[in-house]
């Protein structure tokens, strides 16, 4: 029966080859998922921002090295006589896709919209007091206190046209509850290098080059066809069969095959994201452990034993196929505050680990459940599985509980997990972002992802001081002190920094972007 159908298929199709040739300037770009919305302030999510960066623009952004560079703002500085005011000088002669001029009023409007109640970008602008236009090309942002690093928060806050927004009634970010459709969700008017031509959510979006863009160098890619393909195997198959030109989310195990395929190459580079395990702290017994008296994780000896049992190099070599950078600190090298000393990690020593466990009062180990996401980070479930085996060798019997991130993430934020895997990206490239959410005691807007409820009042004070410290040298010293304690106290068990891999047709080159936000304007073609 199968052969009958196969034969029929063959007969029907032997007429022409499937792959139609496209002009050299069109790029078919495949990703694992689609942008959630076109409203630039509605979602704080990487894929959505990545898409938006082609149509809308930010005041500043980062190059592939991770350094800040001017985009719609030509310069930014703290006002000489007032440390709480940031001054931005804007680029001249920028126009929106509908022809309107880009002015300081648009920046004021966009920043106000981005920090409005319904905006998902709000958290990045909580310290903003007011935004004012000084003249057509100068904007002042008044902060609630000294905020020396605020400019780092602007790399994903896009500029919209005030008039266009008012005309189309999108001054406010879409309110889910209102049940209304919002014009900005499906229509765009940015200043970016590409204009949106058509869009079918989850299926296909087309963008064409914006001939009026301010940049002197016109992008080599004149048309982008954006294709979300959620199944990893299908995505790779589409590249192998020549149906797409770039696959941004490449499974690590397929890199070798793709590299070895004629006409396909793979670009790899480090991502600004660390993968780590978190423990439950405190004296209360763990919910998932056979130890009913006290909490083994609260004992530093146990945490040291666990670190000695985890073979980061083996994880890199087998689970990650070499596509990771093992690390001893939960801070990617891109981030200010990272040092090689912090990054160093101990060699595996199972005997010492067993000794430590015995010393801690657990000569026969103990049981615990590890919660892991299975669709968020590169091979997240396999990493956890490998760690289960490694801890098993020193007698810690770990049960693995694997969930999609939608169900995993609430476990962490509601402190319901004893032992968990999480990945942390640092969009501000500053250690304070890590400390605020992962190390500071859970309290209000602090410690949101401190799911293990680690608490060190001394550190808390230092962390809070970072927000307003204007003496950068002193601030760096404080950051170093905090990291020293975090590392010595083994607050987190870092495994590695993720490595990104983009696969593409041989004739094109797209460098890896550390925040996984590549711009197709950076694509170059081989002759």
């Amino acid at each position, binding site marked *: 029966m199968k052969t009958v159908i196969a034969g029929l298929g063959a007969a029907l199709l032997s007429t022409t080859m499937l792959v139609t040739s496209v002009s050299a300037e069109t790029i078919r770009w495949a990703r694992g998922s689609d942008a959630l919305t076109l409203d630039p302030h509605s979602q704080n999510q990487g894929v959505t921002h990545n898409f938006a960066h082609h149509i809308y623009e930010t005041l500043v952004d980062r190059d592939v090295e991770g350094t800040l560079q001017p985009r719609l703002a030509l310069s930014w500085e703290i006002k000489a006589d007032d440390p709480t005011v940031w001054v931005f000088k804007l680029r001249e002669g920028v126009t929106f896709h509908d022809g309107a001029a880009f002015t300081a009023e648009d920046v004021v409007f966009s920043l106000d919209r981005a920090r409005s109640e319904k905006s998902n970008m709000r958290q990045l602008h909580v310290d903003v007091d007011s935004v004012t236009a000084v003249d057509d090309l100068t904007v002042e942002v008044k902060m609630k206190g000294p905020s020396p690093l605020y400019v780092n928060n602007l790399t994903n806050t896009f500029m919209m046209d005030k008039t266009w927004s008012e005309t189309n009634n999108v001054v406010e970010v879409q309110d889910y509850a209102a049940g209304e459709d919002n014009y900005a969700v499906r229509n765009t008017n940015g200043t970016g290098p590409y204009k949106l031509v058509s869009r079918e959510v989850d299926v296909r979006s087309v963008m064409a080059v914006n001939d009026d863009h301010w940049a002197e160098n016109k992008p080599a890619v004149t048309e982008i066809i954006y294709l979300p393909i959620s199944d990893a*195997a*299908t995505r790779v198959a589409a590249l*192998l069969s020549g149906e797409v030109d770039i696959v941004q989310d490449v499974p690590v195990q397929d890199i070798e095959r793709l590299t070895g395929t004629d006409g396909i190459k793979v670009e790899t580079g480090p991502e600004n994201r660390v993968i780590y395990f978190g423990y439950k702290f405190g004296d209360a017994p763990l919910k998932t452990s056979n130890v009913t008296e006290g909490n083994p994780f609260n004992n530093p000896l146990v945490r040291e034993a666990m670190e000695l049992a985890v073979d980061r190099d083996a994880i890199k070599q087998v689970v990650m196929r070499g596509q990771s950078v093992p690390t001893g600190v939960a801070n990617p090298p891109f981030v200010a505050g990272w040092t090689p000393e912090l990054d160093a990690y101990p060699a595996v020593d199972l005997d010492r680990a067993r000794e430590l466990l015995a010393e801690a009062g657990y000569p026969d180990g103990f049981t615990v459940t590890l919660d892991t996401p299975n669709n968020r980070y590169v091979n997240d479930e396999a990493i956890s599985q490998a760690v289960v085996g490694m801890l098993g060798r020193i007698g810690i019997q770990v049960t693995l509980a694997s969930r*999609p991130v939608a169900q995993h993430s609430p476990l962490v934020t509601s402190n319901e997990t004893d032992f968990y895997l999480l990945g942390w990206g640092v969009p501000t490239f500053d250690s304070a972002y890590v400390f605020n959410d992962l190390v500071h005691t859970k309290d209000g807007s602090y410690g949101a992802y401190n799911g293990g409820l680690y608490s060190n009042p001394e550190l808390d004070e230092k962390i809070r001081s970072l927000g307003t410290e204007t003496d950068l040298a002193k601030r760096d010293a404080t950051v170093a002190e905090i990291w020293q304690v975090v590392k010595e106290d083994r607050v987190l068990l870092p495994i590695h920094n993720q490595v990104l891999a983009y696969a593409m047709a041989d004739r094109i080159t797209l460098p890896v972007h550390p925040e996984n936000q590549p711009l197709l304007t950076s694509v170059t073609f081989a002759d």
Partner: protein
Amino acid sequence: MLAFIIRRLAQSVLVMLFVALIAFVIFRYVGDPIASMVGVETRLEDQEIMRDRLGLNDPAVIQFLRFVGNAMQGEFGISYRLQQPVTELILSRLPATIELAFASAMIALVFGVVLGVFTALKPKSLLSGAVMSASLIGVSLPTFLIGIGLIYIFSVELGWLPSFGRGEVVDLGWWRTGLLTETGLKSLILPAITLSLFQLTLIMRLVRAEMLEVLRTEYIRFARARGLTQRAINFGHALKNTLVPVITITGLQLGSVIAFAIVTETVFQWPGVGSLFITSVQVVDVPVMAAYLMFIALVFVLINLVVDILYFVVDPRLRVDGGSSGK
């Protein structure tokens, strides 16, 4: 007949209400919509504000009444994930799924009946054995594996067929069809085959089993005795009598085809309601899930209605209200 249909319709409405309850109640327990709507870096206080805005902090009863009221107007709110009206999303995805389901149902029905009849009439032939074995192998493979296998062979190795999507589409009013372009038709082949294999096997086995049974009944023997031609016996009598269960199962399976499409659509990136649903489940997009559930229920209720009426027409012995004699 009319009273029967009216009663069935009333029952169907009750069923839909019940499904609405299930759709609503159960999805309140699956994951946390807020957690799925926001990035992992969103602060908790912002999440709480969103929760309030979405009415997720209201009492469950109020939330349910709101749900039913809106559902009756075909209004399922805004997708958490895509921020577009859910009804519109589903309607825009529906043509893709219907075309795929229809294509695979046709493949399943045609090949299923033909092969079923063949294997029943020539049960001892080698080809029959081969067909039966092949069908069993087909049904013993998970759908996603078949799909990936077909992609591997026909897209990657041979390069004959597209590995994903619908190809070029043409808009006929609101109906977006892939049946009018060459790439669209090519794109349909692999997913349709993948989706049809299971139903095909089921129909084939059913037709074969029923045929074998009917062929041994008295009246077929009488027919033979009367000297009717083999063809008349096989098709005029035997096949006709296998049709009742075949109609039932095929009808019921049509719903399953749409349901099974979830996996096929995921593997082939087919932009139908199934892939919309599974993406929604992964991110706990409650409005889409609820609407999809209601939609599938509606399809099944309608199919059951039609099957019941067909039963009535094909086999008048099966009067539904004849049940009183069973007491």
